């Protein structure tokens, strides 16, 4: 592998290694060549979990990395508003289902006409903190929180006042009422190892996962099906991944147990 003249790109370094005795050779050779400078300039894209592992396990791993900034509540609000507008919901208000407080800032066109007496909700602040500013995680929880109707009390109040905006409002459950998935008690070491391996590789096929963990096929299938039934795993295109909704709980669990976690 020599420099062919122009800059090169490796979009997903996490696909170039396995946490297996034979799985580090390729990455190690690549970093060795990189060290010599013969490869010229290039760009490496890598999942944050894989990067955390490779940085510690493979000598020569570039020490610095650039990361996209986490979405704090203002950026997250803007992004969610952008998504809604992209779906053709330019005139929609997002209000909290129990109080009517505005969850996202209203569209600029409606800013003057919107009833703001219920105030602003702190939903997105909680969402940004809980999701660690990761858009995919935040979006998954956001979708679960959306409702087409407000709480009965609020609906009755709005009807009585004659100020119901039912037609142009999407209702969002209060943060405290959202069911945030948690890990079940009696979670075994094997379950933890499976989740950790999936995060370190940004998803793996079931047979590779069994190979990486040295699990017997029968035992591995048992663990996978238990995790799938508990809603912790998603199976997309024959690749198992940790589901977005449970990710914060899994990360917290792994961190608490002393396992390697990403740094972002």
């Amino acid at each position, binding site marked *: 592998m020599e420099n062919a003249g122009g800059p090169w790109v490796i979009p997903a370094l996490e696909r170039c290694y396995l946490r297996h005795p034979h799985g*580090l050779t390729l990455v190690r050779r690549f970093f060795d060549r990189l060290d010599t400078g013969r490869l010229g300039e290039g760009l490496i894209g890598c999942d944050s979990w894989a990067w955390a592992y490779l940085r510690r396990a493979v000598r020569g791993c570039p020490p610095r990395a650039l990361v996209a900034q986490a979405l704090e509540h203002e950026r997250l609000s803007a992004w969610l508003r952008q998504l809604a507008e992209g779906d053709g919901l330019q005139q929609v208000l997002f209000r909290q289902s129990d109080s009517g407080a505005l969850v996202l800032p209203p569209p600029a066109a409606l800013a003057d006409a919107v009833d703001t007496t219920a105030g602003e909700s702190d939903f997105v602040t909680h969402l940004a903190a809980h999701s660690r500013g990761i858009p995919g995680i935040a979006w998954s929880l956001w979708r679960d929180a959306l409702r087409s109707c407000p709480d009965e009390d609020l609906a009755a109040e709005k009807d009585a006042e004659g100020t119901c905006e039912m037609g142009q409002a999407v209702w969002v459950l209060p943060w405290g009422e959202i069911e945030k998935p948690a890990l079940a008690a009696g979670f075994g*070491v094997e379950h933890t190892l499976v989740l950790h*391996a999936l995060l370190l590789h940004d998803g793996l096929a079931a047979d590779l996962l069994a190979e990486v963990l*040295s699990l017997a096929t029968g035992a591995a299938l048992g663990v996978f099906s238990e995790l799938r039934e508990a809603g912790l795993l998603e199976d997309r295109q024959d690749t198992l991944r940790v589901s977005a909704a449970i990710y914060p709980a899994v990360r917290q669990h792994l961190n608490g147990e*002393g*396992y390697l976690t990403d740094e972002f």
Partner: protein
Amino acid sequence: VPVVRLLVIAAAAWLIVQQSIDPTFENLITLFGAVGLALGFAFKDYTSSLIAGIVTLYEMPYRLGDWISVEGAYGEVKAIGMRAVEIVTADDTVVVIPHLKLWDKLIFNANDNSRNLQCTADFYLHPRHDAALVRRTLHDVGLTSPYLQVQNQKPVAVVVQEKPWGTHYRLKAYPVDPRDQFRFITDLTVRGKAALLELGLEFAVAPAAVAA
């Protein structure tokens, strides 16, 4: 507590003393002195353990969750009392160790109130082989074990020692959780053996004299 039995025994002893010796002041002093001496010998170790128990409070040779070895008993500290410490071994057996061992026995504490507990997997190979290749392979076996503690960057080391009957490799690394140490050693051993067999290496068999 069998109070009635104790009272009967005390009354009987008092009657026997009255019958057998003249209860003068001098005789009673002698008698109580002898009884005190006997009790002192009987409770010597108990008292020593109680004092050692106090010493453990500030010296802290072991704490809850530590993995200790005392006179061949190795296990996790589950309870520390005034007189003794209770450990649970890997065979799920509770061993009660009096604190007085502190005075004159070696107490091995494998993790000393931390999560860092070094484990070792041993491999014995026929001496004719590429030691550098084996060392690299075993190092990667350690690095890729799912039980390995990576977060705190504890080292993975391979120690090589030549023996008269072969080469002894010791793969040393730290598991994430000290309670997983036996799983970790098993994982290192199973994966290490598989990796060495893939390299076509021959394992050493100790001569009968050495094995004995």
